[in-house]
């Protein structure tokens, strides 16, 4: 039975503990993602909807949940699932373990059962398909050793991951595969090219003196040589061109058609025609009709295969940025286990492990320093070039480099949860996403290939029905040329390759672009709204002035600071820090209440204290007339003065100021020079806002905007017909970021996966906005060049191949020219995208 009342504030919980008595169990669970005041009720409601949960309390301060439940009716796993479904993390870690000798369906259940019996494991899913098991566990309760033990006790072995001793492992499977594919295509090309030379020469003996006499038209020699050429061309068709036929066949099975379909039909039409011409010349009305097109077969295969090879090579380069990021990952970690330090592959580090870091070491995973001090080079993640000093309680980021000291830290995020892994995932997802411009291409490409096939048939019919003699030869050439010149690949590659390069380029500059959508929208922004605090300014205000009337300065500050101790507002923290710096002894506040956008109130040492803006004082009927002059002076200096009232009487002012980031002014000027309207938005009063705006050169200021109204202000600007970007932090400004056409979030440390934003600026500087817009403009320009090129090529090339110019200027394309054009159109598209790799931000290069 429940033997104690639920207290409102739980003690800090470090590990989840479950106590079971009778039919009631209690569970303390560490949560993550509780960032707002509305979150705890959400989680609470979510848990309480479960049958069997008697009570649940979520504590925002120590990020934990206390759940009282009936273990017979609901299990821990269900509670955790429910918390996750509500959008929060429930302190469980997931790991994927490769297992040897797992062959049968019963293995799956046996392994899962063994793992589920291990204390702290909340779920296990084994798959005999991939030979892995995915385990969810409470990192505070379970170690990797325990999981290994459970698997071994069930009679299975873990596949030991091979960790390369040196940092640069070249084992990216995609890379290896690409290299093999390239090598194979090049071999196919060389064979086709080598055979093409004699085939070309001997196919046109009339053009070459000597050959003309040796094998005159209609002679047996010519027929025999041509027959031999057909045999020579066969390996090219069968081996070098094999991918076209397998592609054709696989496509037909799915009722789809692609580039391979067109090439396969084209080259086989040319080959079959030649076979008939050599084998059954009597079928042709005249001898000169019995021409062969072996050369078309071999040269087309050679050129297209070369094009494919070059395209693979060029495509490999488009994803260089992601390779660099993956290369940053640490391979090993020095972990303290059972009092000993052991080196482990980074995959075996679990959350909760204590890791030891020596000078010069790479930090393996994300965590929190528990002991020691050091300077850490975080430039690879944050772009901040100066090493950052870290001590106990500070967050360290995986893949960053320890410089000077030794320290120990507790792993908090491992595997796919680390900041680097999130960055990689975000970049990969973004590179795979589609820009709206791509939708047009998608619609077209669905109809493209079958349409080309129909056009080919139409051209054949037209030439056969109305064309000049020899009609069959012309009709065949035109059919083959039309099929071969069409290049669906160039169309399909145009957008994705540029996006991949552009988004990768962003990542190199510390800018995470969420999707192709965000990239395309960034290009067209008319106006950009900058949040003041933390965006234009450093966001770390400090106490600057205290003005007292009727009370002593120390009293005013002490009471104000005591009141703010309960607040998490940065202004409050500045006041507390300022008071502590002056050596004042603070007391506890009772009945602390935050009045959104206005201030705070409460009781300190039995005295009612109010701290806030003029509106708050007016609302409470406190006359602050005599303080207005000082207030205006401070506000004019760009500081944030706040009125303090004690026992309903005006007591004075405390002022804090936030300093402008060093590069904000230059960034604003550049944004303006790029043609954007720059607007500043802040919850602060107009005076403070204007003072800061003056410093950085912004004219349009939206001041005294309540947090809930920020999104509305964005919308108002959008109603002026503008495409609006919003720059702010990802938490307080989330609704405004979501409302904006493009939301830029200023990220800090490991917190990179900011959901509401379209673009995350890891560097935390406004210059990132400039770079992001520059990258989007360069990328979209590149996409457009590619699309115009690819569309233009097909729109112009196909009709020419069909022979529309023949009646006008007598031009008919050779299938060989068509093959060359086709092969190099897609290479050109990919190469053009690769030009973006040399992009350097011009305006933001400061």
């Amino acid at each position, binding site marked *: 039975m429940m033997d104690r009342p639920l207290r409102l504030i739980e003690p800090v919980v470090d590990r989840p503990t479950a106590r079971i008595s009778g039919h009631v169990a209690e569970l303390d669970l560490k949560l993550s993602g509780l960032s707002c005041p509305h979150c705890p009720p959400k989680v609470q409601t979510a848990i309480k909807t479960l049958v069997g949960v008697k009570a649940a309390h979520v504590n925002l301060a120590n990020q934990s949940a206390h759940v009282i439940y009936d273990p017979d009716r609901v299990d821990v796993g269900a509670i955790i699932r429910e918390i996750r479904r509500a959008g929060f993390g429930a302190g469980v870690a997931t790991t994927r373990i490769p297992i040897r000798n797992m062959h049968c369906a019963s293995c799956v259940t046996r392994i899962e059962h063994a793992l589920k019996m291990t204390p702290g494991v909340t779920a296990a899913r084994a798959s005999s398909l991939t030979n892995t098991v995915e385990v969810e566990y409470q990192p505070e309760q379970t170690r990797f050793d325990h999981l290994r033990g459970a698997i071994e006790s069930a009679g299975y072995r873990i596949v030991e991951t091979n960790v390369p001793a040196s940092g640069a492992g070249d084992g990216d499977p*995609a890379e290896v595969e690409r290299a093999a594919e390239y090598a194979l295509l090049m071999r196919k090309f060389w064979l086709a090219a080598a055979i093409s030379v004699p085939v070309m020469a001997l196919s046109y003996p009339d053009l070459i003196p000597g050959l003309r006499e040796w094998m005159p038209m209609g002679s047996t020699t010519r027929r025999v040589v041509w027959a031999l050429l057909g045999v020579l061309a066969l390996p090219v068709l069968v081996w070098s061109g094999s991918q076209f036929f*397998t592609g054709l066949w696989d496509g037909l099975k799915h009722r*789809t058609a692609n580039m391979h379909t067109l090439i396969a039909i084209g080259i086989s039409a040319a080959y079959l025609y030649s076979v008939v011409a050599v084998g059954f010349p009597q079928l042709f009305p005249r001898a000169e009709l019995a021409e062969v097109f072996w050369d078309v077969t071999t040269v087309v295969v050679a050129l297209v295969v070369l094009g494919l090879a070059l395209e693979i090579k060029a495509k490999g380069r488009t994803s260089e940025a992601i390779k660099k990021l993956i290369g940053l990952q640490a391979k090993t970690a020095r972990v303290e286990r059972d009092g000993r330090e052991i080196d482990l592959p980074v995959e075996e580090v679990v959350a909760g492990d204590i890791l030891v870091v020596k000078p010069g070491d790479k930090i393996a995973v994300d965590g929190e320093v528990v002991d020691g001090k050091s300077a850490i080079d975080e430039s690879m993640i944050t772009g901040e070039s100066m090493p950052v000093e870290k001590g106990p309680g500070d967050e360290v980021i995986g893949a960053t480099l320890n410089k000077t000291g030794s320290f120990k830290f507790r792993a908090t995020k491992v595997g796919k949860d680390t900041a680097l892994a999130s960055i990689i995932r975000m970049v990969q997802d973004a590179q795979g996403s589609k820009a709206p411009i791509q939708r047009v291409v*998608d619609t077209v490409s669905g109809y493209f290939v079958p349409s080309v096939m129909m056009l080919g048939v139409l051209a054949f019919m037209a030439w056969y029905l109305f064309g000049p003699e020899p009609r069959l030869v012309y009709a065949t050439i035109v059919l083959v040329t039309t099929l071969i010149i069409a290049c*669906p690949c160039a169309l399909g590659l145009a957008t994705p390759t540029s996006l991949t390069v552009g988004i990768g380029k962003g990542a190199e500059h510390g800018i995470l672009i969420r999707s192709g959508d965000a990239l395309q929208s960034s290009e067209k922004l008319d106006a950009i709204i900058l949040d003041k605090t933390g965006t234009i300014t450093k966001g770390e205000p400090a106490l600057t002035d205290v003005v007292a009337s009727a009370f002593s300065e120390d009293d005013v500050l002490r009471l104000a600071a005591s009141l703010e101790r309960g607040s998490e507002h940065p202004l409050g923290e500045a006041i507390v820090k300022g008071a502590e710096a002056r050596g004042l002894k603070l007391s506890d506040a009772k009945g602390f209440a935050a009045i959104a956008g206005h201030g705070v109130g409460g009781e300190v040492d039995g005295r009612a204290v109010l701290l806030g803006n003029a509106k708050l004082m007016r609302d409470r009927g406190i006359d602050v007339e005599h303080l207005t002059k000082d207030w205006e002076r401070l506000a004019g200096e760009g500081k944030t003065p706040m009125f303090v009232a004690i026992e309903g009487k005006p007591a004075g002012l405390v002022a804090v100021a936030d300093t402008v980031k060093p590069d904000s002014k230059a960034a604003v000027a550049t944004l303006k020079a790029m043609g954007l309207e720059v607007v500043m938005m802040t919850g602060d009063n107009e005076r403070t806002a204007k003072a800061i705006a003056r410093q950085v050169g912004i004219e349009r200021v939206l001041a005294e905007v309540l947090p809930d109204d920020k999104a509305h202000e964005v919308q108002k600007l959008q109603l002026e017909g503008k495409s609006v970007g919003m720059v702010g932090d990802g938490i307080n400004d989330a609704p405004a970021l979501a409302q904006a056409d493009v939301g830029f979030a200023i990220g800090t440390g490991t917190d990179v996966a900011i959901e509401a934003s379209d673009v995350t600026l890891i560097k935390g500087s406004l210059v990132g906005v400039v770079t992001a817009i520059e990258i989007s403009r360069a990328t979209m320009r590149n996409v457009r060049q590619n699309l115009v090129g690819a569309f233009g090529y097909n729109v112009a090339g196909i009709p020419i191949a069909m022979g529309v110019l023949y009646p006008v200027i007598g031009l008919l394309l050779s299938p060989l020219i068509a093959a060359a054009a086709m092969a190099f159109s897609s290479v050109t598209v990919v190469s053009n995208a690769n030009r973006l790799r040399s992009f350097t931000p011009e305006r933001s290069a400061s």
Partner: protein
Amino acid sequence: MTVDRWLVLAGGLTLIAFIVWFFWLKRSSGVRASETSSGYQEAMILVKGGYTPDTILVRAGRPVRLNFRREETASCSDKVIFADFGKSADLPTGTTVAVELLPKAPGVHEFACPMGMFRGRLVVE
């Protein structure tokens, strides 16, 4: 018109009609994803010249896990994109890659390779 011309005309038109019917008019009815004990709707998709099966039927509001297995090396199909979900996955040859999605409302969502040559549909009921 001579006989051969009539033959070419008739043959050509028939071929065009066949192309239209073969590539555009006939559609497969789709395969229903099976439900696992853990509540996932799971389906295996073979990537080879296209997606087999290319139409997956699932129910809304339940997580979906699609296991892609690519058995070809053509560079077009090395990625699968779910544009509506903003998700994508790299598909190395010979490896099974799981893509997890949560379709919230009924509708038809396309998935495709980056160049849109391979297409599949996720039909949410």
